[in-house]
């Protein structure tokens, strides 16, 4: 049974988008300069190893980006291919218990921690884009397709960058439409007859932003985005504990619409000693009452003309969805105990080292370590009630975990 972790997929999608921002990442500034690479191919490949603590989700994700300049003002074509091997376990939403249980397998990991479900999945994705310069505009179109065991995603996007003010300012805007199909088969609890079910999810997204060159060495970008989701937004593999003793569970149910809004401010500064500072702040809120703040600071330092060292730190915090609770005394229309909708915060620290070899090839290796903590903490039920004398019972949260990522990259520029 494939109980896939949607957040892992979203992260994968964000990583794909980040890869397109490569010029910004590599030089720290000046993403607007046109490339003089007529008729030539650029290759970027990245390999991501992602691992959550406690035997949870682990992802191996190789990605390949090929960009072909079609020469003579004919534009540029790019192809992005990705493969995710996802495995591990994910909390089901059931209440933690310190009871020991006997079962036919290690499927439920209990004893003071959260029951989890094991899964493995493989995701293949491909995205094709075409962009071409028309005067001050740089419109582009992209189509993408991704397939997993129980999930298919199709999307199309259109965007434009309009350079104004003699190159000092750029208006960028875009729209993306996607239609995903979820087919949760093989789940005996919610689909006991093994019927082939297909649920759909539509996502329509719009973004608008302005990039302003503030001086010789400063860049500011402000953008806003809106995403409307409708359709099947529930996780078919998650449950919610109900009742006074919290041992009863029912499948979770989320609303069938979601409106997501974000405001992002990016600032970049280039220092005379070949260093660059990038600061990104993001404010997010949605119609599920979740509000989140992200602050990310990265510093790139070029050393000896061949090496680039980039330390990074990121802070994140979010509030809970209006229908989230670790358990419900009485069932409600919308309920979820998914820790990803819970109030939580995280701190990430990372370091990437890149080496430029003969102007064409760049190799990079990066590590990040993230510590995430949930603010909605609960005491496991079971064994220790009534608690024994002098025993300290620590409340736990399913959001508590640490995440390690290792990213290796190889880029080739003509």
């Amino acid at each position, binding site marked *: 049974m494939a109980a896939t972790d949607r957040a892992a997929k979203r992260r994968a999608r964000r990583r794909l988008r980040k890869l397109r921002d490569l010029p910004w990442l590599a030089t720290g500034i000046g993403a607007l300069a046109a490339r003089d690479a007529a008729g030539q191919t650029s290759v970027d490949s990245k390999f991501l190893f992602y691992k959550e603590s406690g035997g949870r989700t682990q992802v191996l994700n190789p990605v390949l980006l090929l960009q072909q300049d079609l020469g003579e003002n004919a534009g540029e074509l790019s192809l992005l291919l990705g493969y995710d091997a996802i495995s591990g376990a994910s909390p089901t939403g059931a209440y933690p218990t*310190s009871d*020991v*249980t*006997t079962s*036919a*397998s*290690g499927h439920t990991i209990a004893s003071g921690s959260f029951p989890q479900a094991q899964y493995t999945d493989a995701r293949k994705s491909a995205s094709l884009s075409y962009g071409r310069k028309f005067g001050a505009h740089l419109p582009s179109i992209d189509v993408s397709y991704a397939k997993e065991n129980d999930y298919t995603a199709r999307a199309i996007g259109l965007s434009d960058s309009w350079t104004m003010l003699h190159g000092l300012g750029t208006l960028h805007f875009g729209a993306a439409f996607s239609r995903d199909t979820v087919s949760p088969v093989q789940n005996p609890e919610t689909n006991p007859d093994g019927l082939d079910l297909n649920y759909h999810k539509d996502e329509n997204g719009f973004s608008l932003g302005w990039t302003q060159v503030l001086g010789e060495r400063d860049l500011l970008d402000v953008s806003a985005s809106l995403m409307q989701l409708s359709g099947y937004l529930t996780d078919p593999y998650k449950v919610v504990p109900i009742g006074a003793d919290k*041992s009863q569970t029912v499948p979770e149910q989320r609303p069938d619409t979601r409106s997501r809004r974000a405001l992002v401010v990016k600032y970049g500064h280039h220092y005379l000693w070949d260093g660059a500072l990038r600061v990104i702040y993001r404010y997010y809120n949605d119609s599920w009452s979740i509000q989140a703040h992200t602050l990310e600071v990265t510093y790139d330092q070029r050393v000896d003309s061949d090496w680039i060292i980039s330390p990074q730190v990121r802070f994140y915090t979010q509030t809970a969805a209006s229908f989230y609770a670790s358990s419900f005394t009485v069932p409600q229309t919308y309920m979820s105990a998914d820790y990803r909708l819970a109030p939580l915060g995280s701190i990430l620290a990372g370091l990437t080292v890149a080496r430029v070899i003969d102007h064409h090839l760049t190799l990079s290796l990066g590590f990040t370590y993230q510590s995430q903590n949930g603010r909605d903490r609960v005491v496991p039920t079971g064994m220790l009630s009534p608690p024994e004398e002098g025993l300290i019972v620590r409340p736990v949260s399913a959001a508590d975990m640490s995440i390690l990522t290792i990213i290796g990259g190889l880029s080739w520029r003509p």
Partner: protein
Amino acid sequence: MQFVDDRGRQTASRIARAVEIEARRIETKFSRYRDTSVVSEINRNAGRTPVAVDGETDDLVRCALELTDLTGGRFDPTVGVLRRAWDFKAGKVPTGDEIDALRPLVDASAVSRRERTVFLRRAGMEIDLGGVGKEYAVDRAARLLREEGVRSAVVSFSGDVRTIGSRGDGRPWKVGVVDPRNRNRCRFAVRPLSDAGIATSGDYERGFVKDGVRYHHILDARTGWPARGVASVTVVAATAFRAGCYATASFLLGPAAGLTLLENAEDVEGALITDEGEILATSGMWLLSDLPGGVWEGCREA
């Protein structure tokens, strides 16, 4: 694993680490997924040559063969070859011909145990000790804890449990039995009175539903098809190994014969949950569980 120990955090960590190392050793040694395991070596040499094994492996093979006799051939450590016909991940049901083609390779009598060697007489045969290895690992872990002087513990690996003593305050350990049709709930709990092993055999670990019929991975070796009638059976015995053998045996025998086997076996108690959800328990379970009629009935929170 949980244990009560008053010698401090350092000792507890050291003991926990030793148990973990031992569990991994057993997993690596008997896993059919690892090329370097003893089991893989025996399988590679099927039909060719006997493989020399140590006392531990020899014992496990012997127990697996005894279990085959106990279940009239329904349990068979060589049933693994049928994996080639079934695909539980993709939900593929094999044809009768595919099963028949592999049946000659499922034959415990073709497993030759002689002078500390194990030989699979027909090429293509495979032996799998996973069915008895897990419980063995739990018992070894419990033995380690006993040797370290721990008087009160409960060890659980992949659903097989071994208890030592009782909880710190004298109350018996409480081990919930997972509902085969809803992994987030327990149907009842076992309350072992002294050191005991508790094992469960069930149809819900791996499987799929096709055309309304549930196909699970515990195959009756005589037919090649999933055993029917029982959703899960939980057995309490002196060791997890003994409990595991009887759990698998009674699962494969079906509700009536399975319950009879448990009733007649000495120092073994258990309860079956049938496909319809009914719980059938041996007479000794009234002392050892919170099933209706038992001493612990109604003591959910105790």
